[in-house]
C-alpha cells in the first residue's frame, strides 16, 4: 500500500508542499525531507522531548505525530526561533548560563521553553521545572537549563517593561 497524499504545511514561515505516505512521522519529514535538522531524535518513543516542535500553539513531540495529522498546520522548529546571527533570547541565555553541554537536547529544550514563556512569562523555578518535565537532558543535571530559562524570562520582562 503506497498511498501517497498531498501535504501542505507552513514550516518556520515557509510554505511546503510535497507528496508523502501518511505514516511518515513528522520528525522524519522535517529532518530527512525538508532538511530541517534542529529537532533531534533522542528516544523515538515519546519520552525525551528532543524532537519537540511547536504546532498551532502546542509543544508537540514530532516523533509521535504522523505527517498526515500535520497537514495544513503551522510548524515552528528551533530554526524558526533564531539562528547564529540572530539568536533568540533563550538561545543567548543558554549560551550565557551554560544551559547545554553536548547540546543534543537543546533544540527541543529551547523550543519547549519558548512556548512555556509565552504561556507564563514570569515563571517560578518550580513552574519552569514542571513545565519542562517532558524534556530530558543527560548532561547538565538541569540546574543550568532552569537558570537559563529564568534568565531569559527576566530579560524578556525587562524588554517588555522598557517598551511600555
Amino acid at each position: 500500500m503506497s498511498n501517497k497524499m498531498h501535504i501542505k504545511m507552513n514550516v518556520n514561515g515557509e510554505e511546503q508542499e510535497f507528496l508523502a505516505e501518511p505514516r511518515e512521522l513528522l520528525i522524519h519529514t522535517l529532518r530527512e525531507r525538508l532538511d530541517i535538522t534542529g529537532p533531534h531524535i533522542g528516544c523515538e518513543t515519546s519520552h525525551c522531548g528532543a524532537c519537540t516542535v511547536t504546532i498551532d500553539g502546542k509543544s508537540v513531540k514530532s516523533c509521535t505525530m504522523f505527517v498526515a495529522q500535520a497537514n495544513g498546520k503551522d510548524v515552528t522548529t528551533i530554526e524558526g526561533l533564531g539562528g547564529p546571527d540572530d539568536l533568540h533570547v533563550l538561545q543567548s541565555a543558554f549560551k550565557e548560563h551554560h544551559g547545554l553541554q553536548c547540546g543534543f537536547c537543546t533544540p527541543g529544550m529551547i523550543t519547549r521553553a519558548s512556548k512555556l514563556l509565552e504561556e507564563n512569562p514570569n515563571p517560578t523555578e518550580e513552574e519552569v521545572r514542571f513545565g519542562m518535565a517532558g524534556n530530558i537532558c543527560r548532561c547538565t543535571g538541569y540546574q543550568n537549563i532552569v537558570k537559563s530559562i529564568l534568565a531569559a524570562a527576566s530579560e524578556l520582562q525587562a524588554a517588555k517593561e522598557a517598551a511600555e
Partner: protein
Amino acid sequence: MIPAAFEYHRPTDMAGVLAVLEEHGDDARVLAGGHSLIPMMKLRMAEVPHLIDLQDVSGLGGIDVRTGEVHIGAMTTQTEIIENAELAQVCPILKEAALQIADPQVRYMGTVGGNVANGDPGNDMPGLMQCLDATFELVGPDGTREVKARDFYEAAYMTDREDDEVLTKVVIPAHGAGYAYEKQKRKIGDYATAAAAVTIVSDMGKCVQASIAMTNLSDTPVWSEAAGAALVGTSLDDAAVDAAVSAMLGDIDPTQDNRGPIEFKKHAAAVILRRAIARAWSRA
C-alpha cells in the same frame, strides 16, 4: 520505528466517521491525540489499515458546565482541562488529576475521550471517572447510548464500546465533595504504580458519602464500593480508614511487573489511599 502503512481519513462530521467504521469494520480505528495509539502502531503492536483522525470532526470538543453536571467533549485535551477556570471551580479533581498525567507535550495532545476509551489499566482518567460516577456517551450506527464509567471496563483494552462506536462525551455529575487524586509514580511522566481518586461529603463532622477508585492495580480500574462504604457514618477515625484500606485491598488484583512485585503494589496502594482520604477529608 515505522508503523505499517495505512489509509488516512480526516472526516469533518460524525456521519463521515461512522461511514468509514461501517465500511472497514475491525480494520478501521479512530485517532484522537494519538499518544497511546501512535506508540503502539510504531511498535507494530497495533495495526490500523484505516486510520480515522478525529481532529476536524465537529461537535467533539468543548467543556460545558451546566447546572448539576459537566459535559466534556471527547476531543478535549488534558491541557484544556487544566486551563479551564470554570471547570476548576465545579470539578477541581479533574485538574488535579490531569496535572499528574504524563508531561506538558503529551497533555497538549492527549484527550479525555482517548484516555477513557483506550482501556489501558495505566490510564488515570478511567478510575477518576468511576470515582465521580461519570457517564460516557457513545454514538454508533444504531444511534446514541450511554454507559456508566463503572460498567464500561471489562479487561485490559476491552471495554463495553463496540468497534463501530465512537465515544463522544463524558458527563460528570456535580459533587461539591472534598476530593483528592493521589498518584505514586517512579518518575514524572510515568504511569501510576498506584493511584487513588477519592471524594468525600461531610455533614456535621461525619462522612455522609464517599467514593473511592484505584488505578493500575488490576486489569481494569477498580471502583471499591466497600472502601467508600467503610467511611460513611464515621468521623474518619483510624479504625474507619483502616477498614476502608483493607476493603480496597480486597478489591484490587495487582500483578508483578517492572513497577514492582505484588506485595509492593499493595503497600503502595494502601499508602496512596490513606493520603488521598486524608486530603479529601481535609477539603470536605
